[in-house]
């Protein structure tokens, strides 16, 4: 009986996820035909609940432990309340983006529950508190607007926070990236990303003269250098790419993009020769098998996990993702592939891509240049981070040790990503919701 239920649930999970993903792209394609999009969004929510129920069926059938039902119901309340509160309190919000956010949070909470019950409890608290803070933030933003002119302040705050980490921070697995306040480990670079996007939007939305570009470039370079010195290479790369993309979008000049990419390549090559920790990351990427006893261990275990479930996955609790060090943090994607299936994991990546494209679509429709720039910046920050963490854990690119937004375990990661998306929901469709209310309700 156990076997039958597990097998059937595997097929259903894969099928439902594929339909959900297809609908993400259908929604992108159908902008403007408001009615059908609203129907699709409702259906997506139903699919989300179906997936959640199927995952818990697997968990309970395999473990025979009814205590997991408590987790199911608490998560269910969060997953029901989130879209309801967002759409009822803020009818202008983008429902498909909220749906995808819930999908990613649900997947994350489920896989973390499978890895560690204790961490699953904490993750549920992080998610709930973060969503509450996020909703409050949207409320204030919509009432009071945002002080967009204070970009120098955002830049200063961000750089200062990073500098403090560099000087005082504790060394965490080779990277100095966090503070510990009252036993709560706090990773500032996750939040400085938001300040960074706010700084660039504020600085570039009115003026794209060369002087302004150079000034912002200097400030951005300062962020990147501090991060490289802190050995937080993943964040350094994100800041760099976000800067290049935002200058390109603000100016509309391809020269900035091409120049930026060339500069990036030069800087990466230089970093390879100057910094031992950059070199060691590249060497692990090129041949993790040579150092499987030491540096290559995590990536090798991640690849074993990634490949062992094949298309449909082994089923929750039936694989061995816990053999990967820090699985819930850096390489949670491999655990998802092992137990929920490769097809599910690949579809999840497409959901991330759809979320990014939905954000860009919002940016294209925005009349306010600040809002357009901010939304594009958020989109790039989000997707590039997904690219770094998933590509790193699957040996597509060198591993840089950033988290998978919404999915990975960790208060800083969850709170900062939710705040970033709520910032978008708080400032978008302010000026133009009268004439193009595409996805309301």
């Amino acid at each position, binding site marked *: 009986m156990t*076997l039958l239920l597990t097998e059937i649930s595997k097929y259903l999970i894969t099928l439902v996820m594929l339909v959900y993903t297809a609908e993400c792209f259908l929604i992108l394609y159908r902008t403007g035909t408001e009615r059908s999009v609203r129907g699709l969004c409702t259906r997506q929510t139903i699919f989300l609940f179906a997936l959640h129920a199927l995952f818990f069926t697997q968990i309970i059938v395999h473990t025979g432990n009814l205590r997991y039902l408590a987790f199911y119901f608490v998560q269910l309340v969060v997953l029901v309340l989130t879209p309801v509160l967002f759409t009822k309190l803020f009818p202008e919000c983008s429902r498909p983006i909220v749906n995808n956010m819930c999908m990613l949070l649900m997947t994350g909470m489920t896989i973390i529950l499978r890895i560690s019950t204790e961490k699953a409890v904490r993750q549920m608290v992080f998610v709930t508190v973060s969503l509450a803070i996020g909703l409050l933030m949207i409320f204030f933003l919509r009432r009071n607007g945002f002080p967009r002119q204070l970009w120098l302040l955002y830049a200063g705050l961000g750089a200062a926070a990073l500098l403090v980490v560099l000087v005082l921070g504790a060394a965490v697995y080779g990277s100095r990236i966090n503070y510990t306040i009252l036993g709560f480990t706090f990773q500032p670079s996750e939040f400085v990303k938001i300040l960074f996007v706010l700084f660039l939007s504020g600085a570039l939305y009115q003026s794209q003269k060369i002087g302004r570009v150079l000034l912002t470039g200097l400030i951005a370079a300062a962020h990147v250098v501090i991060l490289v010195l802190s050995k937080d290479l993943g964040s350094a790369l994100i800041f760099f790419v976000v800067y290049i993309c935002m200058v390109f*979008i603000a100016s509309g000049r391809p020269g900035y993009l091409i120049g930026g990419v060339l500069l990036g390549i030069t800087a990466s090559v230089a970093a390879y020769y100057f910094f031992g920790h950059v070199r060691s990351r590249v060497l692990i990427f090129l041949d993790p098998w040579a150092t499987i006893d030491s540096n290559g261990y995590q990536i090798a275990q991640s690849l074993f996990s990634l490949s062992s479930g094949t298309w449909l996955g082994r089923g929750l609790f039936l694989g*061995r993702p816990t053999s990967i060090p820090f699985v819930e943090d850096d390489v949670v994607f491999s655990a998802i592939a092992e137990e929920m299936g490769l097809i599910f994991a690949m579809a999840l990546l497409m959901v991330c891509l759809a979320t990014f494209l939905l954000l860009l679509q919002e940016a294209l429709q925005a009349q306010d240049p600040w809002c357009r720039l901010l939304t594009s910046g958020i989109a790039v920050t989000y997707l590039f981070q997904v690219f770094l963490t998933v590509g790193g854990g699957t040996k597509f690119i060198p591993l840089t040790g950033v988290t998978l937004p919404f999915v990975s375990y960790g208060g800083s990661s969850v709170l900062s990503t939710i705040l970033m998306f709520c910032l978008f929901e708080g400032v978008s469709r302010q000026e133009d919701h009268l004439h193009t209310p595409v996805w309301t309700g």
Partner: protein
Amino acid sequence: MTERTQTARRQAGASHAIFGIGVLFAVLFVSMTAYIGYYSYAYRKELMGNSYNRRTALLEEEVLRGDILSADGAVLAYSEEDAAGKQHRVYPYGAVFSHAVGYAVRDRAGVEALGNYDLLHTALSLKDRIAYENEGKLFPGNNVRTTLYVDLQIAAYEALGNRKGAVIVSNPKTGEIYAMVSGPSYDPGTMEENWETMTADTERGVLLNRATQGLYPAGSTFKIVTTLAYLKNNPGYYTDYAYNCYGSFSSEGETVHCYGGIAHGQLTLRQAFAVSCNSAFVDLGLKTEQDALSSTLKQLRFNTTLPCDLNYKPSRTADPKTAEVPARMQLAIGQGETAMSPLHLNMITAAIANGGELNKPFLIAAVEDSSGQVIEETKVKSGGSLMSAEDAKILRDLMREVVVSGTGASLSGRSYEAAGKTGSAEHAQGDNIVTHAWFTGFAPASDPEICVTIIVEGAGSSSTVAVPIAGILFDTWFNR
């Protein structure tokens, strides 16, 4: 330009930029996703075989490890489930198949390692699996059918006896490995109890598969390589070559003697090859351009990887481009820095037998489900072209002459026409010089079916030790 048009322009520029960024990231993301799917699926067997992957134990909780079968259907390894649900591996032939079939306790080797993924996965339908689940039994894993033949393997195992060395028999037309023996051997069934002593034994090297991982001085078998380089350097003129042997060759302070100090007298290349005259081959080697030798070594895959999934050590030689005369003299007769695995020599011999074309050697012929239905068959794969068809034909003739009138004469007058090359390779072991006996060859010479390579460590003359083993193997194959 008015303020309004400037703004409009900027808006359009921004829209194009956003669109461009969207396309760029979408392409990047889709490529990554496709790569993840491809890599995870295509490399799943290899990744499961890695000894750092602990999922074997997980799979053994639900699947009874499948059988390993010989090419003719005999069971070489199977698993039993005891009352406590724990699996035990049984090897009915004991030590006969030791290195070829390998073992599967703690670490894995041989077919047990190559086929680990398939042995621990089941092709049973869901309905059948539910039936097994209801009976509380493990699912039977898929079976792996090897390319090994029991009669050839036993013949090779018994012929080698308790001596150190290796035997490898293959089909040059496909790359199937028909037999593979390494001495000393071990009983894989006792690995669990004897793990500590076996892995600690570095002196005898019981666990080392000498057929693939043993590196030996190539000795006179390397004259095949020297000849090939000369042929490529002097196309069409090899019949003009002549040499008068006085029993040794000296140059720049280095002297090479013929085996037993025999002066062979006036020789053609054909005669020199047949009697394995060292002096003539040193002369031949020095007359070959260094670039030609270097390119020949490269094409034969010395100093690099081999097209083969087995666990092997790559062969190595001195670099002919930079070597001084003494080193080149040693290289010509396969001594000095030359170190070669029996597998590699067998592959070169197979390519000669197969018109210059190498087929990738393999041990697993097919994966079958527990009822014997074939799920996946290994296809014959090219391992590349090692030489031209003409050069291969000349080498086949030269190797045939070795059996007709040379050092392999004891193989003549049988029901088949064999061809080959002997080698007595000298190896310094402390203060003593030991001589390894080599033979590599194939039969029938006109249309080769099997290809054998033999080395017996420290056994002395190849003609009296290695050649007779080849005779036993050929007899076993042709007198079935």
